[in-house]
């Protein structure tokens, strides 16, 4: 474990060094994240100008939900972005073979091989939204609340990563897994809003099948002191379950890895 931590920091340092070499790319990436996030927020703002209450949720409460989701999402950008392109960039090009002949877990190597700085944009915006919304809503950040927030964001991030891991395994058969990952990942858009405004079917899907609800709606309920029962505590268990399923599938995919010609 300490070995993996020190290897990760080594990879990260080199990644950052390369990023600094391509400053223009870095800048464009940062700006595009900002634009993307601002556009998303603008939609919420426009909607709330017309209807002050959405399904009983105020503007500030919506910002909290939105901010929590952005924080969780930032983790998958920062630490697991290669799950998106393992097929396109590694399996198709044959680069994946290299991971398999190094004395390091191939999944770890894949993840450590990329650090997407665009995640920083999501992290910062998520942080701003959660702190301003909670200030206006009068949420006090005592130790239990702070601890809850950290665990919730970590679980939310791992739920994103777990789902991407599960879908990326298809790359071992179909080479390019981006369309598959995209279909599942894009459902997180629903979780930008309170799940309670959807019908039962959608609620079920976002709670039990693609459980992005645990990355935004359920923790927001806890922080706001609303009651959704046991669900506000299930985030970590859901995240661990998804990761375990994902890793088993990954190992199964690895056995079926066919490499490329030559």
């Amino acid at each position, binding site marked *: 474990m300490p070995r993996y931590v020190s290897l990760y920091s080594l990879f990260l340092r080199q990644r950052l060094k390369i990023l600094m070499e391509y400053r223009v790319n870095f800048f464009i990436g940062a700006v595009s994240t900002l634009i993307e996030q601002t556009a998303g927020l603008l939609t919420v703002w426009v909607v709330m100008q017309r209807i002050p209450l959405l399904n009983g949720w105020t503007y500030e409460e919506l910002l909290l939900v939105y901010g929590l989701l952005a924080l969780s999402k930032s983790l998958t950008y920062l630490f697991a972005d290669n799950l998106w392109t393992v097929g396109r960039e590694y399996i198709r090009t*044959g680069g994946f*073979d290299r991971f398999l002949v190094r*004395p390091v877990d191939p999944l770890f190597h894949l993840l450590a091989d990329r650090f997407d700085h665009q995640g920083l944009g999501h992290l910062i915006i998520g942080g701003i939204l959660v702190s301003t919304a909670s200030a206006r809503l009068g949420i006090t950040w005592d130790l239990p609340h702070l601890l809850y927030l950290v665990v919730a964001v970590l679980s939310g991030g791992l739920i994103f990563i777990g789902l991407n891991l599960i879908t990326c395994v298809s790359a071992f058969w179909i080479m390019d897994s981006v369309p598959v990952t995209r279909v599942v990942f894009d459902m997180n858009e629903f979780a930008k809003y309170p799940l309670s405004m959807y019908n039962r079917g959608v609620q079920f899907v976002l709670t039990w099948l693609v459980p992005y609800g645990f990355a935004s709606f359920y923790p927001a309920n806890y922080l706001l002191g609303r009651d959704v029962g046991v669900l506000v505590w299930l985030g970590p268990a859901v995240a661990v379950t998804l990761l375990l399923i994902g890793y088993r599938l990954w190992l199964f995919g690895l*056995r079926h890895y066919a490499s490329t010609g030559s």
Partner: protein
Amino acid sequence: MPVIQAENLSKVFHIPQKDPGVAGAVKALFRPRFQPKVAVDDVSFQVAEGEVVGYIGVNGAGKSTTIKMLTGILVPSGGQVRILGRDPHRERVANARDIGVVFGQRTQLWWDLALTESLGMVARIYDVPPTRYRQLLDQFAEILELKDLLHVPIRTMSLGQKMRAELAATLIHEPKIVYLDEPTIGLDLIVKERIREFIQQQNREQGTTVILTTHDLGDIETLCRRVLIIDAGKLIYDGPLSLIKERFGKFREITFDTASPVTTFTLPTGAEVVAAEERKLVLRFDRTRATASQVAASLMNQLEVVDFSLAEPDLANIIKHIYQGALREDGGRRTEDGGRKAEDGRPELQASLGR
């Protein structure tokens, strides 16, 4: 104990079949059909510590697939592999510490990092002690002439520089076994020489076992005493380089210079015309069916020969013959000890294909 053991190794790929056009794509989506393709078929061999083995065959013969099973990248469809006693797929990490792999033109170095940084990362990944790393770095920089390249990013290097850098990266953790998949492809002669010397030195001084796939017979001739030949997934030869010529080089070429233009003549038995110019005739004969003196005598009786010369077949031509399937027609699967001579002195070629 052999360091590499391959027993009845097979690999079957399932290639998706698609009809042309959009309709075909849609059909393939709902009812995918797969065509099995046998890439490696029942291959067995062993390699002892410190051997340098050349593994040759045409493109698509199954060389890379075999290497990928030996390195643990692919799981065999049948048979088993043991590398230093381990299953390279199940015990991936332990196996990876003991092996080094060069994949032809694909680099393992980081495109944007300077060479020393890249090598430093590789050394960290393999837990090379810092003092040992510095020793090896100095040594490799010397032999591979990398001194001026240490602070240059990989992306700006030429092919030859990249390959030298790649070799340094592959051997920096002092692996016991090295797999080199076409290490000299596309390189100029000087660089080839350097690389061969480096491989030789590692083998001599460290006792490194080397498996080398190549299309360059120069690599084979300078480095390998033992050669494996794979064709259409089957191992058709496993033995010393020197015996390939003896066993498979059954054709000789004989060139005649004649006093007057050649018009008509009867071909000696067992011979065929390779080239005929006005005063020059090149014949090829099967030395298991005729001797040089028979062919020469027969022709000299018919034509006025000024001069003639006999050419030994060179390895390249023999290999070309093997690639073209000459052996498959003979049905010959050769092994080192399988060279029983038949009565007429002709090497026994009806060995155990598809036994």
